[in-house]
C-alpha cells in the first residue's frame, strides 16, 4: 500500500505513450505551420495570416438615408454584403450633431470595407448595389480611403511587449519552479499559440477569414490561459516530488500528478468552454471569430497542459539523467 496515490485509477499513461502524444502534437501543428509558410510566400505582404481592415485599412463609404435605421436592417445589410463576397464590413449609423443639439431626421450609414487598390471599385459597386436594394432612396454621400487602426509600428511595439512578458514568465517560473519547468511551459505556450495561428492561416487560405486587432487580444487570452493551465499541473508535480521523490521515480510522479489534476483540468476547460460556446452559437456575427480563437485556445491549452507540457518535463529530465549517468561512467 505504499503507493496508494499512484495505484489509484490511472486514466492516462503519459510516460508510456509519450512518443504518441508528441507525434499527435506534431500532427496538430504541422498543417498550420505549412499554411503559414504558404501564406508568407504567396501573399503580397508576406504575412502568415490574412490581415483584416485594422491592419491594412480600406475604404469608407457614407450614405445618407431619410429614415431611422433599425438593428434588423443593419443585420440584413451585413448578411447581404457578406453573401456578395465582402468580408467583415464595419457598419455604423451616424447622427449629425446639430448646433442646437437636436437630433436631425437625416441618418448616415457608414460602411468600412477592406479593399485593395485593384478591387476598390468592385467592392464599392457591390456595396452600392446592396444598399440600394434595401434603401432605394439612399444617397451616396462620400467615399475615401481609410488608414489602418493598427499600423505596423503599433503592432511591432505590442509584439515587443508580448515577448518581454513571455520572458518575464520564464524568469518567474525558473525562480518558483526550475528552469526545465519554465522551458516546458514556454514550449507549451508556443505550441498553443502556433496551433491557433495555424488554424486561422488555414481558414484564411480556404475561407478568406481575416484577422483584426481583436484577434491580437484573443491570442493574448490564449497565451494567458496556456500558462495558467500548465502551472497547475506543474504545481502538482512540484508538490509530489517533495513528498514522494524517495519512493517513486520522477516519471511515476509525473504520471500520478497528471492524473490527479485531470478532473480539475477538464472541469475548468469545460466551464470556460460553456460560456464561449454559448457566445459562439448564440452570439452575434461580429464576435464569432474572436470567440473561435478562444475556444481553440482553450481546447489546445488543456490538451497541451495534460499531454505536451508534462511530456516535455519528463523528456528534459531523461536527458539530464542520461547525462549524469554518462559522467558517472566516465
Amino acid at each position, binding site marked *: *500500500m505504499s503507493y496508494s*496515490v499512484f495505484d489509484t485509477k490511472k486514466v492516462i499513461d503519459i510516460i508510456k505513450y509519450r512518443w504518441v502524444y508528441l507525434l499527435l502534437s506534431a500532427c496538430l501543428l504541422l498543417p498550420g505551420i505549412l499554411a503559414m509558410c504558404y501564406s508568407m510566400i504567396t501573399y503580397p505582404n508576406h504575412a502568415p495570416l490574412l490581415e483584416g481592415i485594422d491592419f491594412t485599412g480600406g475604404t469608407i463609404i457614407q450614405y445618407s438615408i431619410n429614415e431611422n435605421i433599425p438593428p*434588423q436592417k*443593419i*443585420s440584413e445589410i*451585413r448578411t447581404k454584403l457578406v453573401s456578395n463576397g465582402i468580408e467583415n464590413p*464595419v457598419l*455604423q449609423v*451616424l*447622427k449629425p*450633431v446639430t448646433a442646437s443639439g437636436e437630433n436631425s431626421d437625416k441618418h448616415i450609414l*457608414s460602411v468600412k470595407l477592406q479593399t485593395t487598390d485593384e478591387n476598390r471599385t468592385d467592392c464599392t459597386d457591390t456595396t452600392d448595389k446592396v444598399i440600394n436594394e434595401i434603401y432605394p432612396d439612399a444617397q451616396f454621400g462620400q467615399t475615401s*480611403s*481609410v488608414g*489602418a*487602426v*493598427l499600423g505596423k509600428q*503599433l503592432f511591432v*511595439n*505590442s509584439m*515587443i*511587449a*508580448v515577448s*518581454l*512578458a513571455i520572458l*518575464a514568465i520564464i524568469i*518567474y*517560473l525558473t525562480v*518558483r519552479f526550475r528552469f526545465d519547468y519554465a522551458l516546458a511551459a514556454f514550449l507549451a505556450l508556443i505550441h498553443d499559440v502556433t496551433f491557433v495561428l495555424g488554424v486561422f492561416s488555414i481558414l484564411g487560405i480556404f475561407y478568406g477569414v481575416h484577422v483584426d*486587432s*481583436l484577434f*491580437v*487580444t484573443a491570442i*493574448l487570452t490564449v497565451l*494567458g*490561459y496556456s*500558462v*495558467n*493551465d500548465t*502551472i*497547475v499541473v506543474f*504545481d502538482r508535480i512540484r*508538490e509530489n516530488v517533495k513528498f514522494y521523490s524517495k519512493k517513486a521515480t520522477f516519471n511515476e510522479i509525473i504520471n500520478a500528478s497528471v492524473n*490527479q*489534476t485531470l*478532473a480539475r483540468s477538464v*472541469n*475548468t476547460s469545460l*466551464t470556460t468552454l*460553456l*460560456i*464561449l*460556446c*454559448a*457566445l459562439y452559437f*448564440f*452570439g*452575434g456575427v*461580429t*464576435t464569432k471569430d474572436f470567440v473561435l480563437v478562444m475556444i481553440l485556445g482553450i481546447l489546445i491549452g488543456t490538451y497541451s497542459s495534460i499531454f505536451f507540457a508534462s511530456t516535455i518535463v519528463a523528456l528534459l529530465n531523461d536527458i539530464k539523467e542520461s547525462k549524469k549517468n554518462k559522467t558517472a561512467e566516465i
Partner: protein
Amino acid sequence: MKNKIILFWVIVILTIISIVCISLKPARLGLDLKGGSRIVIEAQTTETIAKITQDMMDALKATIDRRINPQGVAEITIQQIGEKKLLIEIPTDSDLKTVREKLSQTAELEFKKPVLDDKDNILGWESSGLTGSDLERAEEGTDNAGRWQVQLSFNGQGARKFAKLTKEFRGLPIAIYFNGESISEPVVQAEITGGKAEITGSFTREQVKEMVDLLNAGALPVPAKILEENAVSPTLGIDSLNQSKFAGILGLGVVMLFMLFYYRVPGLIADIALIIYSLIVFAIFNVTGVTLTLAGIAGYILSIGMAVDANILIFERTKEELKSGRTLFTAINTGFDRAFTSIFDSNMSTIITCVILYFLGSNIVKGFALTLAVGVLISMFSAITVTKNFMHIMFGTGQLKNPALFGLKEADINDAYQAAETKREKAKFGVLD
C-alpha cells in the same frame, strides 16, 4: 469562529457597496459596444507649411493620440482618411468639449530672459532659446507648501541650455511662457545644472494636469480643423451585440448549473462567490472609469475562467482530503492551503504579463491587460477569502456526515478512511496518501 463571522459581514458590506457603485454610475462602454462620437479633422496648410506630407500626418496622429488618450485606456481610435484628414472615434461618455479643445490647442512652452537696462531694470522679455522641444518629460507635483506645480525634466541639450540661462541671470527673474502667456516669473536663486525645473504659481490641480498632458504630448506639427462631428453607433453592430449579450448570460447560467450539480453545496457557494466577484470587479471598473471594450471583456471572461478554476482547484483538493478521512474543518483548510500554491503561481504569472503589457504595449492591449489584472486580483480574493469563509460558516468543524453534500459517495470515504487510518502519523504532517 468569531473572526469568521466578522469577515462574513465585511464581505456582505463590500458586496452592498459594489451594488451601490454599479447602480449609481453606469459602466463606460467602448466604441465597439456602445458607439460614441466620430470627429473628422483636416490638417491645414499655413504660410510656413505649404504641403502636408505623410510624415506630418503620422506625427499629427501620434500627437493627438497622446493628447486625448494620455493613459492609453480611453479606447479611442484614430485613422487617417484620404490624404490629410483624420477620423477620430471616441466613446460616448468621453467629454466631447475637452476633446474638441485638445484637438485645437497648441502647447508652446518657452523660457524667456529679461531685457535689462544699465541698472538691471527689466524692460521686457526675449526668447532664450529654451522651449518645450527641450523637454524630456513633465510631471505633476506639489511644493513644500502643498501647492500644485508642474515639474519639468529637460533632455541633455535642454539641461545645458537651462544651466547656461540660470548662470547668466542669477539673482534676476526669468519668465516662463505657456501658449504665449507668462504663467510664472521666478527669480533665479542659483545655477541649476541637474536639468530639472518647477513651474509654481496659483494653479489648480486640473490646470497642472492639463499642462502636463499637453507638454508630454508635444505641440501639433500642423494646425488642424474640425470638419464634421457625428454621433456614431457601435462598430460591432447593435444587431450582433444584443445576441451576444443574451448568449453571455446563457453561458454564465450554464456554468453555474454545472458547478451546482458537480460540486453540490460547495458548488452553490462557488456560484455565490462568483456573483460577488462579478459585482466587485464591475464596481471597480465603474469607479476607476475604465472604458470597457470587447477586448476588455475578453480579459474579464478569462478572469472569470480563472476564478472558477480557483474554486475547482480548491474543491478537488478538499474532496481528496475528505476521502482520506479528515474532519471537515481540516479538510477545507488543507484543501485551500494545497490549492493555494498553484492559484498563487498561475495568477502571479498572469499579473506579471498584464503589468508588462500595460506599461509597454500599445493602446489596443492596454485595456485588456488592465481588466485582466483587476479580474485576477479580485478572483484570488474571491476564491480564498469569500469561498473559504462561506465554507467554514456553512459546514462548521465536525466530521462529514452527509458525503452527498460534496458529491461524494459513502463508500469513497470509508475506503480511503481506513487506508489513511494506518498512517495517522503521516497525516499530521499534511502528507497526502
